[in-house]
């Protein structure tokens, strides 16, 4: 994956969202909490870009959305990965790993 410096956050966020939804169908709030807990709040991700990402991924056909009932019986929008989304996640994940390894190789003292 080629990552432009300015795209870093947006691209990163899309990968994180795809990863989260790979666990299963969930609504936006659950996605937000899940990422928050997994990163221990280190990334300080705001919720606004997260929702933008969800809808953007829906437009790209990686994610589908459906209204359903939440655990407290409210109407909530549930997201799940499509087949295309699964393929996209696999591709981005391996690209990210190579990217991160390359960065680490530079940072690691030799």
């Amino acid at each position: 994956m080629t990552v432009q410096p300015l795209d870093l956050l947006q691209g990163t966020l899309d990968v994180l969202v795809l990863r989260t939804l790979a666990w299963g169908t969930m609504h936006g709030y659950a996605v937000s909490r899940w990422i928050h807990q997994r990163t221990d709040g280190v990334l300080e991700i705001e919720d606004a870009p997260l929702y933008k990402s969800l809808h953007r991924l829906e437009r790209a056909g990686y994610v589908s959305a459906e209204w359903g009932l939440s655990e407290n019986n409210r109407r909530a929008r549930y997201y799940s990965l499509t087949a295309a989304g699964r393929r996209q996640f696999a591709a981005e994940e391996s690209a990210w790993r190579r990217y991160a390894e390359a960065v680490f190789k530079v940072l690691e003292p030799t």
Partner: protein
Amino acid sequence: MTPARKKLFRLPWRTARQIRDDVDEELRFHLDMRIAALVSLGVSPDAARAQAAREFGDVDDARRYIGAVDRDIEAAQRRSDFMSDLWHDIGYSIRKLRAAPLFTLAAIATLGLGIGANTAIFSVVNGVLLKPLPFPRADHLVRLRFTQQGHSDVATPMDLVDNRTRATNFVGFSVIEGTTANLSRDNADAERVQGVRVNANWFSLLRIAPLAGRFFVEGDDDASAPNVAVIGEQLWQRDFGGDKSVIGKTVRINSTPFTIVGVVPGDQRYPVTVELWMTKHWAPNELSDQSRGARWLGLMGRVKDGVDVAAADNEVEKISEAMEKQFPEPFRERRVHLVSVQEFLVGDLRKPLFIVLGAVTLVLLIACANVANLMLVRATAREGEMAVRTALGAGRGRLVRQLMTESVILSLVGAIVGLAVAKLAMHELLGLAPPNLPLLRTASIDGTTLAVTAIVALLTGMIFGVMPAMQVGKHDLATALRAGSRGTRTRPATNRTKQAIVVAEVAVAVTLLTGAGLLLHSFANLLSVDPGFRTDGVLSMKLLLPQRSYDSTTIRNFVRALETRARALPGVRSVGLANFIPLDGGREDYAFSIRGRPPVRPSDAPSTEARKISPDFFATMGMPIVRGRSIASTDVPGAPPVLVVNHAFAQAFFPNEDPLGKTIVLGWGGDPGGDAREIVGIVGDVHSFGLEEAPEPTVYAPMAQRTDQSISIVVRTDGAPANLAAPLRALVRDLDREVPAYSVQTMDERVASSVGRQRFYASLIAIFAAVALILSAVGLYGVIAYAVSQRTHELGVRVALGATGDRIARMVIGEGLVLTAIGIIMGALASVFAGRLVSSLLFGVSALDPMTIGSVTLVLVAVAALASWLPARRAARVDPLIAMRGD
């Protein structure tokens, strides 16, 4: 939600407002959840709200962004739904159409015929009448049309001089003098081409540029200027292979050397049949007041760009009036008007072509009516299907869309068939067209026409095609479903529509058939006219002896040699010569006086057509001598000058006297006092200018006493006259290589081509009438057959109650005939108007000819009876058991 589920259930489409509400709800859910979670951790509600908002970030920006993205998603969804519906509709429509092959074929054939015929005819009308000639500002190119004392007249050289010196609204004027040119090149047989002599400004008046070389320049028409000629592109390609080196080459035209200086683009030839342009050189006395009585020229002018053509017309009229005052004798009651060159060229065609166009529009109307009818019949049959689909949840819009798809598919296929029909029809039309219809050959299929016609047909199909879907909403589903999928219910309203359409179709067919009948009847009348000569067994041929190499003595020698050698050809019974022969278009008219009668003013002097013939001409043509004698071989120079007059001449000028022995003084040049000749015989009349033209007074002088450059030869044989063409041509080539024989035709062929136009119009209208008849028969059959199938049950009950098959058949046929009768009455009324339209094209038959109207009625009744008999036979065979069990 999985993709598979998505295909099964389509989410209802969301509006922009619904999208906004959904976004708000999603974001509110998030914030509420977060606040509740924080409160449960012990944070105060106010602080929790603030923290949730902080963690969220810019809510308004997110709302805008997400809204935009969702609208994109929605639009994409709609597009893909539309496409998948479309594919579904197309597939469904094709299955439905294939399931009803008769209906489909009938509709496509109807559309194809209607669209095709209309396109072909309109393309011709457009190409010939509406498309301007290919010259810049062609509307300002005008011909001067003269009349004198009510008769059409042509220009004298002085008309050129008068208008050129006096008119201010014109760029310039040029004369046109038609001429036959014998064109000889080195190492090739001479050929005869259509030529024209014009002023040097001719091509600058047309405003065209040469394809090669140059056009005439000022001074080319001076008496002392060298002979130059311009050739047409077709001649250039045919004789010179399109080689540019032809410029500057010398050819011999009528045995005079000419230098070729330029080539005219093929599509910009004017006059259209001309291939050779030469400049007009005037004899010294031709441009003087003495020549005001001599009329043989055409005159063209170009009106200045800023000037109204009406103003220019006014100006030439004023000039003509002034000249009449100055020269009252030659110009008495002489009038002039401007006509555009286009009008001059095709003016005669306007009316017939518009009539043909009207006829073909009627055919299209019938075609549309038929399509409408077919659609309606089908619609009724599909009420059950529509009801079932509605019950299964299809909206009316959805049904309309599917039916539209069906109509569009039908119309598209119909249009493709139409294009093929148009191509074929154009080809046939041009093949059928007589060669003397100018511009017709330049017509080609017009894309706009095809599109317009196809759209008309398409709209018809669509309007009537969606009717079943419209009707679904009108009555309750339960009734339609209960009536069963067999669609056995009939509403009187649709039936009445169908019947009205059939009545209209029959009416239009009657109108067309009447028009066709009238034209065919007058064509038959025309063919039954006795031309005044025997047309069989005679070959004719024309040639021109150039003035440069032939004087009267050499002409006499040539004629004698030609006559002798032609007579010696095997199979030849007799040989006649003349300057013009009947139906060759040639004529010369001269004023004359009758010796012994009081003198009259020159402009009141009678005039007659005058021809020159050899002694055996009448015998060869089979023209009977009524009284006196024919021209004899003793009527030679030095012998007393004689004339034979025709019957029409004797009737017109000697109604109560014996013309034999009287002396006629002909003003045809030579002796200024006139040429005095004694009438020695009376010959039968001949239709020289067309079978529909009454014979004109004509005098025949011996060719030996009055020679002529123009020679026609007629040869009578016992065998096939066409076999003599080759030996005769060879004979002429042998006598003079620079004199080509042309217009080699049997007299039968001349008669046939003289009625070419009439045959063309009559066959066109007849074709349309036949198509109209077939289409309306199909329409009638469709309606009756459908009515019978609707009434199977009722008919079954009747049979069960004792009605015989004959009785049932009579009842069904009777219904068809009632519709036909109404149509015939309406059509007969319309025919009265149509007849008036074509009356100018009729010959020997009245526009209200009872014979024609009677036979048309008979034909239609017969066709209608047949169209109803087929379904009636089926009705008569209805088995009451089966018919009633069907319930």
